[in-house]
């Protein structure tokens, strides 16, 4: 027991941070709440570093301390800090400032639980924990659009989670255990395996906003404050995708789950970019783009078990995606919510313009930026797993994505009047950090390949 607790110290630190931030809020000291939150998450990240290289499980195999769950902490905790700094601009001075910080951390904790899930119950727990916290986050501005967005989000989440729990009961029935590692034991009952798997894909697919479980995402992102949309597009999504990886690692290949993943990947990438192509609202555009990016993750996930490149590629792309997507949202937060707001941005604020160009080109996958290295490895993993056709589809989609992101870049360098409001220093910090990360992850990718 002592050993187990020692291994989950980072998670404990995150939990204590959430509680601490909440207590400070109850004492009406939102500033202190923020300070506790940032320090706690940074400490949590630091505590995780010493675990690198560990590969074991705790609590009877129900929670995994492996490459995936360790990197989930190293990626998601800093990402949460950045999202929190973005949120600070939205909530400063409001009555619920500290609550927002606390909810963000609780939700991240849920994502970490998902990323290390070794037990189907942890899948449910993680989904609910992130879900409950994020419903409140979407709803907190208390405006009509926010309430509507939260309502849609909530209904969609409830239904899909219920389906997941229902399907998981088949797995429990078939294998007699809730442990994911025991799944191979049940290949005598293929129908139960497949039913359970479909249910898990529905439950986690909604959280990762994979097509066709993505309907909530554009609406929720649009109704929510930009900072929360940025958070939703990164932290819960990566948590869910890592959880999916944890599940399929132990699934018997005969079930054909890899083909299902490939199909979802094609749908998500293609539909995401096609839909993004016709958006004029930058938040909706980025929402659809993030749906498409989820599809890319699946290229790595379906190769788990058949390619050495699979895990490193998923982790690398997760880090890259967190940096470039948060960066793009932060740049959008300083500029405006419609495409026309970006006109002339490159001329009125050249540095912000360069940063946005870098984020978007990285999302396309132009070398040597982070997105390129990530996608390159994902393609390699898919080809290695005999899914060359899927890599070709992904590459064609990358071309499509260029058209999507150029719709933002081109007006930036046309003569125009960008609202040249002074950049909020907090936004500035987030943009600079994400910018540095996008470059460094691209050039020092070795750090992520473990």
């Amino acid at each position, binding site marked *: 027991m002592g050993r187990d607790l020692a291994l989950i110290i980072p998670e404990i630190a995150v939990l204590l941070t959430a509680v601490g931030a909440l207590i400070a809020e109850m004492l009406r000291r939102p500033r202190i709440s923020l300070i506790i939150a940032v320090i706690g998450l940074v400490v949590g990240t630091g505590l995780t570093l010493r675990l690198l290289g560990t590969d074991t499980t705790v609590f009877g195999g129900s929670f995994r301390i492996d490459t995936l769950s360790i990197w989930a902490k190293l990626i998601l905790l800093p990402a949460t800090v950045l999202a929190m700094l973005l949120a600070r601009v939205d909530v400063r001075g409001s009555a619920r400032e500290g609550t927002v910080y606390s909810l963000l951390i609780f939700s991240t904790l849920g994502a970490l639980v998902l990323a290390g899930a070794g037990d189907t119950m942890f899948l449910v727990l993680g989904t609910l924990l992130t879900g409950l916290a994020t419903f409140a986050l979407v709803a907190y501005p208390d405006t009509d659009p926010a309430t509507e967005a939260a309502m849609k989000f909530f209904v969609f989440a409830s239904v899909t989670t219920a389906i997941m729990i229902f399907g998981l009961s088949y797995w429990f029935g078939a294998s007699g255990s809730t442990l994911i590692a025991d799944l191979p034991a049940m290949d005598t009952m293929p129908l139960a395996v497949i039913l359970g798997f479909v249910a898990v894909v529905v439950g986690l697919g909604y959280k990762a906003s994979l097509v066709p479980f993505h309907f909530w995402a554009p609406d929720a992102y649009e109704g929510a404050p930009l900072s929360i949309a940025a958070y939703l597009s990164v932290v819960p999504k990566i948590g869910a995708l890592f959880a999916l990886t944890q599940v399929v690692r132990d699934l018997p290949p005969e079930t054909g789950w890899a083909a299902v993943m490939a199909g979802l990947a094609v749908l998500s990438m293609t539909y995401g970019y096609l839909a993004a192509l016709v958006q004029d609202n930058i938040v909706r555009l980025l929402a659809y783009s993030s749906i498409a990016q989820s599809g890319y993750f699946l290229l790595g996930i379906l190769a788990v078990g058949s390619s050495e*490149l699979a895990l*490193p590629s998923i982790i690398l792309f997760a880090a890259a995606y967190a940096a470039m997507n948060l960066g793009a949202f932060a740049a959008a937060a300083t500029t405006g919510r419609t495409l026309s707001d970006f006109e002339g941005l490159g001329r009125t604020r050249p540095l912000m313009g360069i940063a946005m160009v870098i984020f978007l*080109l990285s999302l396309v996958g*132009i*070398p*040597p930026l982070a997105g*390129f290295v990530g996608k*390159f*490895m994902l*393609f*390699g993993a898919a*080809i*290695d797993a005999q899914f*060359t056709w899927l*890599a*070709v589809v992904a*590459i*064609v989609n*990358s*071309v499509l994505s*260029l*058209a999507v992101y*150029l719709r933002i870049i*081109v007006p930036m*360098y*046309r003569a125009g009047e960008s609202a040249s409001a002074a950049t909020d220093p907090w936004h500035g910090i987030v943009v600079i950090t994400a910018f540095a990360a996008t470059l460094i992850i691209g050039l020092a*990718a*070795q750090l992520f*390949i*473990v």
Partner: protein
Amino acid sequence: MLPLVSLTLFLPLVGAVLILCLPKPTARTVHGIAIVSAALTLVGALAMWLQGVSGDGFSQVEELEWMPAIGAAYRVGVDGISLPLVLLSAVLFLVSFIYTSSLRDRPRAYVALILLLETTAIGTFTALDGILFYVFFEVSLVSMYFMIAGWGHEDRQRAALMFFIYTLLGSLPLLLAILGLYLGSPDPTFDMRAWIANPPLEGAAAMWALIAMLITFAVKIPAIPLHTWLPAAHVQAPTVGSVILAGIMLKFGTYGLVRFALQMTPEAFREAGIVVLVFGVVSAIYGAFAALAQTDLKRLVAYTSVNHMGYVIVGVSAAALTLDPAVRATALDGAVLQMFSHGLVTGALFFLVGMIQERAHTREMGEFGGLLKTVPLLGWSFVLAAFASLGLPGLAHFPAEFQIFLATLGTTPIAVVVILGIAIIAGTFLKALRETFLGEPRDRWNKMPDLSPREILAVAPLLVLTVATGVAPSWVLDVIHRTTSALVL
């Protein structure tokens, strides 16, 4: 030992960073820094030239760990195929900075972009790692896109977008080919030397990889029917943009054709060689006819590039088809020398067309006449460059094209119909010279000033090298031949 290759490679980038970091530099400072970094780069390239290449594989190799877990590393080096192209890049970029030093419209960003482009160009030619090559290959697109979009002519946005989408779309198949080579290697690595020494793919896989590479390089070269971006990009690009696009970036395609297609999938290339050869012949002849039909000087020069690059394709496919090492060496000597010569000659031609446009604000041949009398220096320079371009003996293109035809005659005699292209190009240039430079001078151009010292400095080095390469090609050919004669496919 100084890491010469890396120094040469990153000097321009250092210059670019310096320019961007200086607080509010004047235009003079910006241009000064650019010229100095480009001059130092040329010094580096010359030092590399003096070091020379050994015939066997790559020389002056520098290696640094990057991503050992997947076998990718920072690896650079040169052989007889890449070294002339490195020298060409260093020369062309230096004269481009001299030419552009009069620019006052946002010089900082413009010059920084060109410096970045110089690093990516030299990087593309020296990279010995699949990922590194692809990185340089792609980043060059981004800087060229912003150059055309920011400083081009009237319809620049559309042309820049077309260029970017076309070439990005074109380069993605190469990514697949690189992944294929990587996964096909017995000990997965991105080391291009290993791919060349033991081509990792065979059979259908090699053929698919070859097809992917051919698509990528055909867009870049550009070969028929993937050439349509070229005239649009050239017409809208600023002069220096055209010079670099034609002088350097087209060579990415032909260089890749040799380095990747020929050296890494030799068997597949031998099988498909005849098809590639046909594309080369069609490109050369089509380019020549298209050039003949132009009335706009810049479009005319752009189409002659399609013609000249067609010869390179013919040379490389002849090298792939032949089994005789001597013929192969001749074909490749010709192809590589043709790349080098084309950079010099077409660079000069685009500069001169740019100078005419700057003075007259038009490029229509019909509007001129008798310019040889009004602006003799400009006129005679153009005449010299045009004669070089049409392949006059004693000028740079002649020894290159001669060797290509010689080798083709030895492998597939029928392909010699491509010589028709020379006749058509000759007609094209003679027509252009007559309409623009001969005849009676028109009154409206009486006040046209002749070349300024800055412009002479930009064009003269190219013309001198054109003559030097034409009269005594051995100074370049020896370097090329050392590698091509030892090539085992």
